[in-house]
Each structure stands twice: as structure tokens, then as C-alpha cells.
């Protein structure tokens, strides 16, 4: 009886951990995505299958939010997708930290940031370098969605300031 209990306990442990690990290991390939997901995540099409499962899950989460985004947000997200994906994990982490910091600013300061960014970009490059600016990665002008992508994806809009 005692042995049976030990076996039961071990079996529970193993099966639960296997169950818990399953969704992490499950990784959808590009062809397994729904047409709608493919349409939204079109800028990632070529690199999708190389992405780690957790990153895929994140992008699928963003694709799920996509229909609820404002049209200009939809355009921006597709424009930024590839550039964001090409960043190193450290760069993404730093950007997230920066975002969190910005979120703590009062609304008027937050709104002024866009204008300040434009102002900063008007500085001579040499001066920006002195401030610690590093050469920027060229952001590929991605054809956001495939041309036959249908109507749910907003048409490409003119690029914002940068």
C-alpha cells in the first residue's frame, strides 16, 4: 500500500509537470496560424518559424489585441513589428524599462515627449553622439501586410516622425 502511494505521488508529479510543460513546448508554425493571425503578423512571416515559443505566444497575444486597437495603433504595430523583433533581448528589455519609466511621468510631460523627440532629432548628429546616442539600426520599411491581406488590416499610413 505504501509503495502504491509513493508510485501514485510520483506519477502525479510527473504527469502534472509534463502537462504544465506541454503548452510551453507547443509551438505553432507559420502555416498553422489562422489566416487572420497571418494577416496581422505578416511582417514576421519570414522569421516566424525561428522564433522561440514564448515570443510566438507574445505575438499571438498582440495579434489577439489587434482588432481592438485604434486604426493608427494598428498601423504602428505592423510598422514596428519587424524592427522590434530584430532588437536584441537586452535592447527590448531596456526599451521596456524606459517605457515603464515614461509611464510614471505626468500626462503633460508624456504628451510633450513626441515633440521633444523631434526636437532632439534636429540636433546635429555629433551633438547627439556626445549625449550617448548610438547609431540607429535601420528600420526596414516593411510592407506591413501582404497586398492581398483583405480589409481588416489597416492600409499602410505615412511613417511617423522617425
Amino acid at each position, binding site marked *: *500500500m*505504501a509503495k502504491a*502511494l*509513493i508510485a501514485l*505521488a*510520483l506519477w*502525479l*508529479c510527473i504527469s*502534472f*509537470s509534463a502537462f*504544465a510543460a506541454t503548452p510551453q513546448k507547443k509551438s505553432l508554425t507559420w502555416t498553422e496560424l489562422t489566416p487572420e493571425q497571418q494577416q496581422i503578423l505578416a511582417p514576421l512571416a519570414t522569421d516566424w518559424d525561428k522564433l522561440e515559443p*514564448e515570443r510566438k*505566444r*507574445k505575438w499571438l*497575444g*498582440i495579434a489577439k*489585441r489587434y482588432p481592438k*486597437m*485604434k486604426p*493608427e*495603433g*494598428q498601423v*504602428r*504595430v505592423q510598422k*514596428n*513589428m519587424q*524592427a*522590434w523583433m530584430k*532588437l536584441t533581448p537586452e*535592447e*527590448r528589455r*531596456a*526599451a*521596456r524599462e*524606459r*517605457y*515603464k519609466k*515614461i509611464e510614471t511621468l505626468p500626462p503633460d510631460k508624456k504628451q510633450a*515627449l*513626441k515633440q*521633444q*523627440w523631434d526636437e*532632439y532629432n534636429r*540636433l546635429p548628429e555629433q551633438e*547627439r*553622439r*556626445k*549625449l*550617448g*546616442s*548610438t547609431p*540607429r539600426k535601420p*528600420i526596414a520599411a516593411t510592407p506591413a501586410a501582404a497586398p492581398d491581406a483583405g480589409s481588416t488590416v489597416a492600409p499602410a499610413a505615412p511613417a*511617423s*516622425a*522617425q
Partner: protein
Amino acid sequence: MNEQQIAYRIKQILSRGLDLDSEKLSRLKFAREGALARQRVESNAPALAWASNVFGRLGSSFSFVPRVVLSMAVLILGLISVNQWRESQVAAEIEEIDAAVLTGDLPLDAYLDKGFDAWLKRSSH
């Protein structure tokens, strides 16, 4: 005289018949009915007895080692669940931030350019 022989003698005497008064007969009847009633209860008991036996054994053999193993298993399951929950919370937060960064009106470079941060600090002073 051994036990079997005594039993045989009693049987012979009983076969010849007993001259018993009504009081003894009623006492015998009462004793017989009592014995039969007890026998019925006992015949119903095996199922209960079996269950009691199983649980009794479970209780007694559920000693130190299995208890430790079972506690460990519960603890491990708990830790796995907490870890899963924590990971899902972190993933949800990352998704939330990424969605906000990607849809925001600030370009990605604004989040990455250290010079911009330094310039903001300098100009705010």
C-alpha cells in the same frame, strides 16, 4: 473422554428427548433467537469489515516515508503551479508593454536612444 466423545453423548441425550418445563423452554427459545440475531449481524458485517480492514491498513502502513513522499509531491505540485502562474504573469506584462510600445506615437528609437534620455534630463534641469 475427549471433546468429540462429550459432543456425541450430548447428541444422544438430546436425540432421546428432554423433559423440560415451559420456563426452560422459553429461556432456550430466547437464547436461540438471540444467537440467530447475532449471527445475522455478523453475516452483514464482512463488507464493513473489509473496508475497515483496508482503511486500517492504510492508516497503519501510511507511515513516515509515504507521508514524506506525499507531502513532497504536494509541495512540488504547489511550486510548479506557483511558478507557472508567475511566468504567465510576467508574460502577460511583457505582452502588455510590447503592445503599448509598438502602438505608441513615440518611435522605437526614442525608447532605445540613450542620448535622448540624457538630453531630456539635461534640458529638464
